[in-house]
């Protein structure tokens, strides 16, 4: 329902959301993606090697 002067985005998210439903849980797909990404990023942040190991070795 944007006005005609607004430039359109690449993807139009202005339509009713799809939901993920399980028992009493009803989450929008967008929120599920966000939460999933947060968990993935957390795991990756812990597992991926951090640069500078040689400098740290010298410093120890």
């Amino acid at each position, binding site marked *: 329902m944007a006005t005609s002067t607004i430039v359109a985005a690449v993807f139009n*998210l202005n*339509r009713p*959301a799809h*939901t993920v439903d399980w028992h009493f849980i009803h989450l929008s797909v*967008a929120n599920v993606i966000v*939460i999933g990404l947060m968990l993935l990023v957390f795991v990756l942040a812990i597992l991926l090697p951090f640069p500078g*190991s040689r400098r740290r070795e010298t*410093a120890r």
Partner: protein
Amino acid sequence: MSWLRGKDDTRPWTGGYYPYDLVKELCVATGVIGLMAVLLTILFSSPDEKPSTIAQWSRSLPQNFSTTAAEELAGTSGTATYGPPYNHNGTGQEAWILRPQKWLGVSHPIDTEKDFVVGPLEAIPGDARLTAALNEYKAASEQQKKAWAEAYAKPLEETAAAEEEEKKPPGTVTVNEAAGSVAVKPSGDAGPVPVMMERLLALAKSGGVDGSLLTSSQFFQTDYTKPLLFMADGGLLEKRAERDHLLGEQWGIMNETGSYPGQAWLWLYAVWYQIEPFKSSENADILVMMIMGVLSLALVLIPFIPGVRALPRWIPIYRLIWREHYRAIEHPRADG
């Protein structure tokens, strides 16, 4: 107060330091976040669904508008019976002996009969029939006013209830879709109320009620409480909200309009409303707020909560985080 700290044998670090440019890191981080925000903007933009107006409401749902207006006049609407901070016609929510809604009192007085119906109608000039109806209404006793209003409201409410339960309506209400008008067969003597309601519907359709409710106390206005509460008593906002998955039972607290991500961080606040006893409780809001208050305090005080503060030791995610450090200790470099 060492008992508060628990078993904390953390010693100050006396080991090595390596070069680390904090300011550069912040600049890079700001650039990264800025770029990500721009990218997300180009890909998805942001939602901006136009607000509803009382004019739109009265034109698209004239029957619903008339039902709500009748309830405002009769004093039976959601706002009319809300209690503080709008009026004294209800005690508000409570939890055991706690009644903060009642205790904090009426800070934003709203008299639905006067503010939503009689007030806007009084501003209409040059309508002799309306003036006569208003004079008759204002001269009557409170009891008479209420009886008239309820006689008009009852068939509207019964029709609305029947439609919601998908049963056959009683036939006391007819809507002229083309004209956008509503004809009501009152359940008893409705006095001047039908004339008042008919004029209010016409005023609403012209945008006059939107304007009237906003500028009623002063020219410059930034407080939209009255028009919002009037609309929220009706069905238009709820209809739009349901389409956008914003209702409570749809976990709407977490959602945004359209298919945008919303407020995922409100997940725990939203959960309580989906389960008993909160789901069907009249005091759901105060109960959930109190639970979230306690949990929020607990979040802040984690360092002092036994068990919760010890969990990171028992579930050793830290071994992964500090694996390079532990490896260096266990297998120190041979050269001295």
